[in-house]
């Protein structure tokens, strides 16, 4: 009984243990893998990212020059970012917002 009362007063005096979302949104740590983005001006359409992707989510064509990503197939593993020779792919920390 005594421990119960002690616990109760301690919990009432402390701040809440949970985050008051949406008033305090979560700030992701830099380096978190959220979704994939590309700087299309630097891309040379070599196709290395298409060959290396484990989920076959990237499609690159030489003529016409296009780079397409299937966002539902991408597993955000960061492999394409590491093998890109021009370093034009990068990871954003948040998830892709709904369209």
């Amino acid at each position, binding site marked *: 009984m005594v421990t119960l009362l002690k616990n109760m007063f301690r919990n009432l005096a402390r701040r809440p243990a949970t985050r008051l979302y949406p008033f305090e949104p979560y700030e992701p740590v830099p380096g978190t893998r959220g979704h994939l983005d590309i700087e299309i001006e630097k891309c040379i359409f070599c196709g290395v990212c298409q060959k290396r992707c484990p989920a076959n989510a990237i499609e690159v064509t030489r003529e016409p020059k296009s780079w397409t990503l*299937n966002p539902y*197939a991408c597993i955000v593993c960061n492999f394409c970012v590491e093998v890109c020779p021009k370093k034009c792919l990068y990871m954003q920390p948040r998830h892709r917002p709904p369209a």
Partner: protein
Amino acid sequence: MLTNVTEVNPSNLHAEVFALQRKGHRFVTMTCSDLGDGFDVLYHFDLNYELRHLRLRLPLKEPLPSISDVFFAAVLIENEIKDMFGIDVQGMAIDYKGRFLLAEDAPRAPLLKTVGVPVDARIRPKQAPEGGQAS
């Protein structure tokens, strides 16, 4: 580079497995690979962190005797091998008759090299997929 491999054939499989059990080995797993003209069935046993293997070369369409009367733990994996490769395993303690892991409309014996189950998930967003992708 497996060490400690002993070659067996279906007639002396039972005797070898029984001898290993008497020495106190524990059954780890069974592996089956499709070699085109036959199957390569491997049995793995363990005693004090040391592995021992038995290799059985099984020609096509030949039955495989079950070891589930010696090691009951083998009954699940033998049912799975029967599902996946279509090998006829005889004398299992519990027999699921070919539907242990696969559903009714799944392809038969999917792990054979000749069965082409497509896994290329290249769904093109511009075309509308009809009836879902078979991936």
